[in-house]
């Protein structure tokens, strides 16, 4: 049986892992390479690295870190942040990424997903979307969740998949950092519209939140950052707990 996946996300800035709460008030946590080793040994099914740097120098530091991780950790690695062109895909794939996650880049250039899917295959292209309720509708946000694009998020998801996105990361701005559970309502709405794997992000606070998430068979993976970084939840404990609750897990 195929398993549900548990994915820690490492936001990297200036060579260090950071984690924001509601995308603000970032705190330093630790070395990305050390954390990647730790998560690999703890049973993480996949790792996501978000490059939240701005300058060219820091970007070089990020790809050096990625290369170091990819040389010793042999589980799928997804890279996002600052992916705006095919050259950006190429840059991180050469450093050992398996999948590339696009967010604002896909909004700015709607030809990016189809071009990347054609060149690298659908399996390589992950569409990451930051979504927030506005007047009862799910709206797509850009610029790290700061700007309402005016685009309907469900239509965006559907279009992204038609264009060749092989997986979706759905990050709920409404539940991000709040630790009261994933945004099940939002995730179900997205799952109604697409038939590719859905990675849920934003809101995990305890192990029960993951159990509740995986009650919907259409949700494939749960992604979280701070609860893993601060060891509020150990991935090994989480996976054993989920398996005891009848959810297929790689242990």
């Amino acid at each position, binding site marked *: *049986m*195929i*398993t549900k*996946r548990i994915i820690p996300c490492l936001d990297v800035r200036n060579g260090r892992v950071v984690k924001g709460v509601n995308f603000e008030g970032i705190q330093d946590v630790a070395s990305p390479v050390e954390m990647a080793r730790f998560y*690999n040994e703890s049973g993480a*099914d996949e790792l996501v690295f978000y490059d939240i740097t701005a300058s060219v120098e820091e970007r070089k530091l990020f790809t050096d870190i990625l290369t170091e991780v*990819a*040389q*010793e950790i*042999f*589980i*799928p690695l997804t890279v996002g942040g600052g992916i705006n062109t095919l050259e950006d895909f190429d840059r991180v*794939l*050469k*450093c*050992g990424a*398996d999948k590339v996650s696009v967010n604002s880049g896909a909004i700015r250039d709607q030809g990016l997903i189809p071009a990347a899917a054609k060149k690298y*295959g*659908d*399996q*390589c292209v992950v569409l990451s979307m930051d979504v927030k309720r506005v007047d009862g509708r799910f709206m797509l946000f850009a610029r790290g969740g700061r700007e309402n694009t005016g685009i309907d998020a469900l239509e965006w998801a559907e279009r992204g998949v038609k264009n060749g996105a*092989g*997986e979706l990361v759905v990050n709920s701005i409404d539940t991000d950092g709040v630790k009261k559970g994933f945004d099940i309502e939002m995730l179900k709405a997205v799952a109604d519209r697409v*038939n*590719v*794997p859905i990675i849920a992000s934003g809101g995990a606070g305890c192990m029960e939140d993951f159990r509740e998430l995986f009650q919907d068979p259409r949700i*494939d*993976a749960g992604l979280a950052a701070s609860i893993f970084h601060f060891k509020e939840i150990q991935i090994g404990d989480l996976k054993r707990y989920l398996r005891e609750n009848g959810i297929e897990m*790689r242990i």
Partner: protein
Amino acid sequence: MIAIIDYGVGNLFSLSSSLRYLGLENKLTNKREDIQAADRIILPGVGAFADAAEKLRQTGLVDTIKEETAAGKPLLGICLGMQLLFEKSLEYGEHQGLGLIPGEICPIQPDLRQPLKVPHIGWNSLRFTEKAYDEGKRVHPLLKYSRNGDYVYYVHSFYAKNCGENTLAVSEYDVEIPGAVANGSVLGTQFHPEKSGSAGLAMLKAFSEL
């Protein structure tokens, strides 16, 4: 030395890194001499079958691969590389493979009875088939460091069919997906051992000792 055939299909960074991590000398190459000089050959690949088959033909290496494997040199095909070892694929038309393992590559979608997602992406458990064991009940050398039930990482939309005689291990995804196949010294994994954590490394190590 393990020759990893570089024919412009897919990202070989992880594969090369994982072999290096195991202390196994390897070389990305599209040169006949390298493949002849190697102890073992790996045929990687992601993407579409027809495109990859054409690119492989353009390297002019197909005959070399066939000669070397006929002489008993171990060959491991990974993911699309495994699919290329079969007789043919029905991925968007009908395309000829290398014909080193009997069977064909077919789409998963029409065979599903449950509404599962395709591609089949993620970690799935391997179940050894009876073909994984010889008459003395010893497990196939490719699986000697593996455990029945090990989880491995898949990403694919097509799968091998009519190859039960050569299937060492399967994964369940409503249909039975042949995960590891072998025909003499010609071996293949539908999953990515270079992305399957310690279970994958164990299989690459076993391959290096064949």
